[in-house]
Structure formats: structure tokens, C-alpha cells
């Protein structure tokens, strides 16, 4: 079999060599605990502070507004539960969000509801974009926090974050955005966009798994989730993952520096893949295609008359790695809550395949993936060509 093709960059990415190199000393001679007073500690602390500054710069933030976390899920939990718990006594009890959020946000909202919060889900347009008038109607002066993801992880649609954040600010609600899939693909600047809390993650941009960050605008109060030491101003007790934070900083800098060129290249490859698939399978349904803006790295396609699970197996056995819906813990495929929420029929939703592009994508790989995809579709529909 020819080399397998990785089309699942929205799930995770390989650690970049530059990132690995930057981290290595912190597994070796520079192993200190940043909280220690001695030379090893000072050295680690300095490196950690620098990493924080560098990540801050990547999103237009002040260093004290960046809190390192174990990844996107923890950051989302701090954002949702941390702010809601801090505000619950103020008479603002409602959480406004969308039904297409990542499970980390939906799960945190669910927990807040168990603790007494009121959840409000915005209506979605079938383009995959949040209905702004619905958002504005739901986010009133009783809203504690509003949370809308910047780029959807399944279909790549880009939400009008500036507009939503401005409304939230006008009514006094904290605005959070999960920017895990946006970071490195969309320009993010805390100085020009009035979000209050923002989530980013390392392993989607070439840093290792287990590191992420939450941006918390000065003046936004959060209740920490963990209790213990005073690390990160008490916002996130626990000895910091120094090496990973340094790797994250390096990956973030590279992602920002390369963003425009990468976006142009990935959009070109994504379009190439989309055209090749639609040319071979004319009734393919591309989700999120009619959104005003789509992130460049995600292509989500449903082929009527197929099912995601069988397609994923067949693709993988022919060397093409992609994903469907959201994977559950056992690794099985469940129908996508995102597609259901934007009005895609259950049949079509259970046929969705997400292909996500990145560092390992090139024209040859894309062309071959499209070919294999078409073969698998024909097989699945029982129209296999003789000799295949």
C-alpha cells in the first residue's frame, strides 16, 4: 500500500521539529520547578514567563491575561464554569451558547445547569452560522456569559465573533469564544475584538497534546476550578507544564508568522479536494459551503446512501485517515450534533465525513485521497467497477 494519507489535522497534528527542539532542554538540564527559589527554579520561571509573553503576543493580549491549561477542554471549563460561578450571585444566571459548540463547552454548560444555571441555545441558520438576532434576543442583561465558538470543528464555519462579542459587552455579559480551530487560521486580536475569554490549544498547531491556554481579559473575574497552590495567580494551581508551555509558545509564533501563506495554501488544497470529490460524486453534499466564511482546513461532506462508519473503515483500510461526527470514548461513531443542529437530515448527518488539512497535506496526497474517496463511495453504493 502507498503511504497513508493523514486528513485529520482538526483532530491533532504532529509536533513540529522546531517545537520539539525548543522543548528538549526542559526535559533535561532545565528541569526546574518554576515555583522554586533556587537557580533551577528561576531558570524555569523565566522561561515560563517568556512563553506566556510570546503566547500573549500571538493574540494581542497582555501576558497576565494568559493562563496555561492542560488543553482546550480545561480552558473551556475555566471559561464557562469559572465565570458563571463567579457571577452567579450577581443576579445574572443565564448562559447563552449555540448547539454546535464543542462538547467541552456543552458539557461545562450542562454542569452549570446542574448547579442552577439557565441554559439558552441560539437558533442556527442552515448555513452553519449562528442566527445573530436569536443571539441578541437571548443575551440580555440577565446573561452571565455568552459562549460561541470562532470556527466550528466539524464543518469549519466562521462565526461573526466581533459582532456577537460587541453585543455581549453592551449588555454586560462576559463573552467567551472557543478559538481552538481558529487559532492559526483566523487573525485573533484581543485589542480589536471585544471577547473577554478565549480558548486556544497546542496540539492543533504542532505543539504537543496536554497544553493549551485560556485568555482572560483584565477585569474578568473567574473562580478557579482547581484548588491548591498559587501558580498562575491562583487561577490554575498545579506545577506548570513548563516544557509544553515553551513548545506551545514556539508553535504559536510559527503559526502566526505563517498564517497568511498557510491559509492561502490550505484553502487552495481544500478547494481542490472539494472539486475533485464533487466532480466524481456529483450528489455529494458539502456542509458549511454557503457560510459567509469558512476556515481553510476543514471539508465536511455527506454522500447520500452511505454511512460514515463504513466509509471511515473503508477509507482507512485504503490508507486515507479522516473522521466523522464526534468520536465517543470507545472510538465508535455517533451522528453529529452539529449537523443535526443546522438542520441536516439524520440520514445525511450519519453519512458525514470530515477531512481536515494541514502540515501533512499536499497536492499529490489530496488527489489520491479524492480518488480513493470516490472508489469507496462507489463500493458503498454497490456500484463497484469491475476489477477494482
Amino acid at each position: 500500500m502507498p503511504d497513508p494519507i493523514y486528513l485529520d489535522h482538526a483532530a491533532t497534528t504532529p509536533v513540529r521539529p522546531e517545537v520539539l527542539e525548543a522543548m528538549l532542554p526542559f526535559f533535561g538540564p532545565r528541569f526546574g520547578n518554576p515555583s522554586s527559589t533556587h537557580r533551577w527554579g528561576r531558570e524555569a520561571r523565566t522561561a515560563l514567563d517568556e512563553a506566556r509573553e510570546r503566547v500573549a503576543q500571538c493574540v494581542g493580549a497582555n501576558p497576565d491575561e494568559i493562563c496555561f491549561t492542560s488543553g482546550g477542554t480545561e480552558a473551556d471549563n475555566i471559561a464557562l464554569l469559572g465565570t458563571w460561578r463567579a457571577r452567579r450571585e450577581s443576579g445574572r444566571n443565564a448562559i447563552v451558547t449555540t448547539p454546535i459548540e464543542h462538547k467541552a463547552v456543552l458539557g461545562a454548560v450542562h454542569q452549570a445547569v446542574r448547579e442552577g444555571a439557565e441554559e439558552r441555545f441560539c437558533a442556527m441558520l442552515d448555513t452553519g452560522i449562528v442566527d445573530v438576532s436569536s443571539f441578541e434576543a437571548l443575551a440580555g442583561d440577565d446573561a452571565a456569559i455568552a459562549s460561541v465558538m470562532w470556527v466550528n470543528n466539524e464543518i469549519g464555519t466562521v462565526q461573526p465573533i466581533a459582532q456577537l462579542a460587541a453585543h455581549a459587552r453592551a449588555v454586560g455579559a462576559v463573552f467567551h469564544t472557543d478559538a481552538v480551530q481558529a487559532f492559526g487560521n483566523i487573525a485573533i486580536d484581543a485589542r480589536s475584538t471585544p471577547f473577554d475569554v478565549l480558548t486556544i490549544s497546542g496540539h492543533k498547531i504542532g505543539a504537543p497534546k496536554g497544553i493549551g491556554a485560556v485568555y482572560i481579559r483584565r477585569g474578568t473575574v473567574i473562580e478557579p476550578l482547581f484548588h491548591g497552590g498559587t501558580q498562575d495567580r491562583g487561577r490554575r494551581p498545579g506545577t506548570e507544564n513548563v516544557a509544553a508551555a515553551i513548545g506551545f509558545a514556539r508553535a504559536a509564533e510559527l503559526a502566526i508568522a505563517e498564517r497568511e501563506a498557510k491559509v492561502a495554501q490550505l484553502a487552495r488544497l481544500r478547494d481542490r479536494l472539494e472539486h475533485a470529490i464533487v466532480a466524481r460524486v456529483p450528489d455529494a453534499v458539502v456542509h458549511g459551503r454557503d457560510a459567509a466564511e469558512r476556515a481553510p482546513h476543514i471539508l465536511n461532506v455527506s454522500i447520500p446512501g452511505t454511512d460514515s462508519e463504513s466509509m471511515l473503515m473503508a477509507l482507512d483500510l485504503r490508507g486515507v485517515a479522516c473522521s466523522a461526527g464526534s468520536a465517543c470514548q470507545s472510538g465508535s461513531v455517533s451522528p453529529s450534533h452539529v449537523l443535526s443542529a443546522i438542520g441536516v437530515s439524520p440520514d445525511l448527518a450519519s453519512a458525514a465525513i470530515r477531512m481536515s488539512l494541514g502540515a501533512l497535506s499536499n497536492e499529490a496526497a489530496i488527489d489520491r485521497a479524492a480518488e480513493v474517496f470516490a472508489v469507496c463511495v462507489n463500493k458503498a453504493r454497490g456500484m463497484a467497477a469491475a476489477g477494482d
Partner: protein
Amino acid sequence: MADRVLVAMSGGVDSSVAAALLVEQGYDVVGATMKLFCHDGDLPDRPCCSLDSVNDARRVCQSLGVPHYVLNLESAFGRDVVDDFVNEYANGRTPIPCVRCNTFTKFRDLLVKADAIDARWIATGHYARVAGGELVRGRDHSKDQSYFLWGIDRSVLQRMILPVGAQTKPETRAVAHRLGLEVVAEKRESQDICFVPDGDHTAIIRQRLGDDAPALARGPFVLSDGSVVGTHEGFARFTIGQRRGLPGGYREPMFVVAIRPADRAVVIGPREELLGRGVTARSVNWLVDPPAVGASVEVQVRHRAPPARAEILRIEADEVELALDEAVAAITPGQSLVMYDGDRVLGGGFIERARPARAMLPVRAA
């Protein structure tokens, strides 16, 4: 290119060894674990189908160097197996979900997945064999699982491989050790029904049908003469032949001899009332060309029951009626009736009713 085979892997030793043997034999093996019900409640000690089992199957495949997938067959399994299980109990019968899982889930729905990946073959860890296009008991009669496989479509036999059916359980464990599958080699066997936690089937009936389900409501214990001799807490707690939980004070041991959902009665009686000399089964499926009326076959009315000689009285559409040469105890509606010729499985069906007296074939003119 080697033939591809999709191996249904539970994470237990039998299906793991099945996969390993097929790898050794040169097949292009693809492992799959079926997710059949929700893990939300997460029961840590459940021996089968739990998350740990999925992980074990994945590890075995990784060590064999073959791909592994988790297939979500939850909604179909819920419809074809769990719903039926609950309905059967509600109707005063004792269901046998493993048969329906084999018939509908493993050897029908999973076969569709096999087609999707161009797998010519499908394999499981059952102790049974396929020989000459027929289903045959496993070599280790003490582990034989052919009783659970009568319902599969006959054509599936052409695509089925049962690699451990030709060996004994200790041999299977020995192969697991030889191949370094220590994760599963000494795993204990699952005895429970996989979706019934702690062996308490009433929990799932209550969950599906509600607390006030008639099958779980108080009802009378009656004798066959109609006299009421006590009360029970729901007829779904009983099966034909059961002794546990019955009123005491009788000279001879008493058994459940019938369940009557209409008046929620559990009928009890002495051993002779438990005996049947005839049996009728429905949903009959043949794995060979159906034998003629009047043919003598061996039948098994429950797993591990010794085979009993019987004569076929009637074959009609999907129904079969048999006369038993010797009385058989505790013929239970809902269980399977499987017909054998020695080790060959001829076919089977779900037991509809037993007859206390032996019916005879009408004497034919000429």
C-alpha cells in the same frame, strides 16, 4: 492478495484467539468490536462489551498488527435484541437474546460492514464449526455454542469462519499464551447477558416498561387446579422449571410449570407437570434442506440440555411441531428449539409451547 476477514471481537479470549489464528493462517484480518448499548452507567466489572473490553480488543489487534474498529450498532441492537427481550418477559416467556444477537446483529448487520470493506469472510469466537457448508457443534461439547447460532441465514455459512470451534477452551487459552495475548489469556468467561447488569434482568424491564409494568406487579401463585397458594412480585422474575422463590410446605419439590400473563399467574406444580412430550416452535430457520415430516431428529430445548430424540410431526411456513420420544422437562416458551443430526445443526426456532402428551402422526392410508 489474501482474503480479508472481519473478526467480531468482544475483547475476550475466544475472539482474540480467533483473530490471532486467522492472522497466522495468512488472512487479511480486520478486527471490529460492536458497541451494542450505552456505557453511560459505566459498570466497572461487566465482563463483556464494556469500555475495557473494547480497549482489550484494540490492544490485541495492535499486537497482531491488524486494524481494529469500533462499530456502533446500538440502535439496531436495541430494536432487534433488547426490545424483544423485554417484550418476551412481558409476555410471560423467557427470551434468549444471544440467539437474536447472532441472527440479526453479528451475522446480518455486521455482515453489511464486512461488505463495506470488501471482506469475503466474517469470523467470531464461537465454539461451533462450519464444515461442508453446514453448521456443526464445536469439538469441545462442553463449550458448544451451536445452540445459539440456528437463526443465521443459511447463505451466511458460505462466509463464516469459526476458528476456535475445532479446539477446547484450554487449548484456546494455551494458544493465547503461545501468541503472547496475555491481556486476554486468563480472562474469565462472561456468563451474564451482556446488557443486563448484575444478572438482574428486571432492572431493564423496569427501565423500559416502567415501575408499574404488569410483568413486575404482584400476582398469584396458583396450582394447576386453579387454587391460589400465595403471591409473587412479578411473573417476569420466573422461568419454567424454576424452584427458587416459590411457596413451600409441599411433600414433593415444586417447580414453575407455566406463566400466565393474562392474570399474572405463576403456575406451580410437581415435577411430572413439568414434563413435555411435544413441542412447537416458530420463526423456524433451516440451515440444511428441511427434513421430511416423520423424520427422526435430535432436539435440544435449552443450552447444555442433553439432546432428545424426536419425530417431526408438522412443518408449516416458519413453524415446526415435534413429538418427543421421551418426556423432556421444562420446555420453556421463548427459549430455542434446535434440531440436530448428531453434530450437524439442521435448524431451529423459538419455542412456542409444549404439549404434555405425545401427539402421533396420523396413520396414513397406504
